[in-house]
């Protein structure tokens, strides 16, 4: 469902992402972890079509995002780490705007929008301007907008930032539900607990390179540790990489 081929991004002389190769299959929840500045957000932004790669390609559902960006993006629900929105629109208007961009018909929109707003406890705030929303509410609104068109792939950067415990639980349940229905989820996170809890497979990126991928068990073998502790695995793998 998601294929990254030699994905590379340079910022001047800095190599943010270096020849990343990865395949994530349908219905899989893939966690992307790494230290600060490792290249997680850059990778996700290239996958969302927000940033163009210096080299390599992103293929979503068999479509190369560089060659057919509109077609590929129709299949993606992209959620950035910081919820910047159009502050002068109401929540409902923003959903309507998103629905129009993704070609959702009027009849379906009204049904779906009521449904997602209720799911994310935003129904009482639907007619308020986004500028009056809290950080967490904006994050919920972006999540609502991202799932409105039932994407085949959800690319999400730091899904839990700004969410309250109820929101976190809701997102975890939602991810499991949609993945069961065949949606692929690619998320970056600093929360190792979240990665351990929800993800089928985890990738560790360090200094722009993918240094390990696999299930928790596979990563445990790679790091040569006994206990199933992702934090320990993460520390060992990233520390090894930093040793010259």
């Amino acid at each position, binding site marked *: 469902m998601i294929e990254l081929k030699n994905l590379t991004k340079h910022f001047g002389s800095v190599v943010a992402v270096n020849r990343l190769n990865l395949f994530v299959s349908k219905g899989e929840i893939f966690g992307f972890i790494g230290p600060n500045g490792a290249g997680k957000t850059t990778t996700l932004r290239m996958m969302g079509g927000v940033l163009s790669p210096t080299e390599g390609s992103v293929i979503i559902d068999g479509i190369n995002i560089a060659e057919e960006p509109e*077609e590929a993006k129709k299949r993606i629900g992209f959620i950035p780490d910081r919820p910047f929105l*159009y502050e002068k629109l109401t929540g409902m208007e923003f959903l309507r705007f998103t629905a*129009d961009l993704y070609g959702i018909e009027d009849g379906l929109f009204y049904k779906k929008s009521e449904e997602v707003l209720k799911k994310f406890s935003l129904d009482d705030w639907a007619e308020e301007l986004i500028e009056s929303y809290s950080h967490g509410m904006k994050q919920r609104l972006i999540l609502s907008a991202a799932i409105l068109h039932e994407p085949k792939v959800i690319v999400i950067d730091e899904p839990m930032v700004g969410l309250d415990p109820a929101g976190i639980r809701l997102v975890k349940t939602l991810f499991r539900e949609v993945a069961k229905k065949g949606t692929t989820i690619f998320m970056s996170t600093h929360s190792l607990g979240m990665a351990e809890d929800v993800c089928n497979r985890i990738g560790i990126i360090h200094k722009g390179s993918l240094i390990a991928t696999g299930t928790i068990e596979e990563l445990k073998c790679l790091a040569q540790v006994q206990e199933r502790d992702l934090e320990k695995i993460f520390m060992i793998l990233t520390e090894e990489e930093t040793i010259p």
Partner: protein
Amino acid sequence: MKEILILLRPRFLSFKNRRITGKSKGRKVIFLFFGTIGIAFWGGTFFIFYRILNYFKGIESFGDILAFKLLSTSLITLFSLLIFSGILASLTKLYLAKDLSLVHSMPVSREKLFLARWFESTIDSSWMVFIYSLPLFLSYGIVYKAGVFYYAMAGINILPFCLIASSLSVLTVMMAALFLPAGRIRSVFVFLGLLLFLLLIISFRLIRPEKFVNPEAFSSLLLYFKNLESPKSPLLPTTWFFDALQTSLSGSMKSALFHSSLSWSFAITMIFVIAWISGAIYFKGLSKSQAAPVRFFSFPRSKRPRYLWHLNFLSGSKRAFIVKEIKIFFRDQTQWSQIFLIVALIAIYLYNFSVLPLERSSIKLEYLQNILSFLNMGLVAFVLSAVSARFVFPAVSLEGEAFWIVRSSPVSIRTFLWTKFFVYFFPLLFLSELLIVVTNILLHVTPIMMVVSVLTILFMVPGIISMGIGMGAIYPDFKSENPTQSFTSLGGLIYMTLCMGFIAAVIVLEAGPVYNIFMTGIRRGSLTLFQWIWIVGSFSMVFALCIGALVIPMRLGEKKILQGDLELHVSGHGTDSNK
């Protein structure tokens, strides 16, 4: 005092570090451009005051009265400007700045924090007024052959003058913040300021100052002069400043020092007063400004008007962008308050044409009317460029940090840019054609001149709008707190230069053919073959130029966005290798 200086340090360091950002080349060009304009304006102000004062000096008996009347009016104007800009600056510094939560969490007393912020806002609101008041004082000093004492008095008195204005502004803002959220106060004051400015312009224009150059109207000038009484209360800071300057010009040192002491004592008292009042009400107002703004008009979901979403003849994505654009535009009070300004300026523009004293000119009336009409095409295009620089050029930047929504949506950048184009094209085409048709009617031009100007504007408007959108996409500023000000950037400067070049090229290309057509019409003759070739060639070139201006900037803007040069907040990385 030490803490206040520490609080001011980030501002100083940010200013110092500007050269590190790597955009110094663009900044130098802007600095040079605006610096030249600034110096020219400064020189022009000095020259005008110097000439006026010299002229007044030459009038026996009431020349001095006129000169001092001018001084007192100028001081009142400067004081009003200082108060207005002080209100906006202190509102921003004390209630709306992004770093407020950071500085308020620091172990510094609120009083010191307030004083540091107020000091910053005083500098921000006063420096320009201070610089542009200097030619006024200098011209009085030169014309009245004043000594060092006068210049010293001017220097000593301008400081308390600025401090008093700034403290009155901050008092007003603190009071208002108790009742209104800070965001709304800015809108209200900007609106009131614009209204005041418009009233001033309209009333000044309706006085028709040009009639004063006509000696026959001189008796009414005396009447006008008698009525032009500026307020001169002994309780006004402008009066103290005025008296200090007037007495120092006449050499009365004691009196000048007395009035300066009044200014300084009041300014110092005001600093204590605002510090004391801030302790009581500043933090209350600030807490209120952190609360979520409430909408003026809100509808329950079922009753909400949805008329804009019924643009069903458009495809989903186009409709989405158009509706979003219109809603955001009209919900931003700073946008529509500027529309009032434009409407008023247009009314004045048209009024000017209606009162042109063409019959008094020595040039043949029909000839003059049509020359003016032809030149008016350039003027209308210039007005359009200025309006576009304010509204169209920032259109892409207005997406702000929410631009990720556009980039991640399944809509091409081309569609996005062209939707923006059409949102601005129709209203601005209407505006330009309205200006050109009404002015042509007022000028009683020939039908051929009417056709030429209407068609020329019809072809120029898309080019000017396209350059605005395209250049805005090439030079976006997604991180600006106020993207509408992006026209003062290097991109805005290039846009205006391109517009000027475009307008000049069209006018130059059309001048010869239009003259030939017009003169042939007057002489009731027919055009020669050479003239026909010239006309067809020139108009074809104008057409090609307009098509180029329409297509090329949009393509370049699209290319620039697609190249990935437009990075948003990529964590830890500021620039792109593709640059």
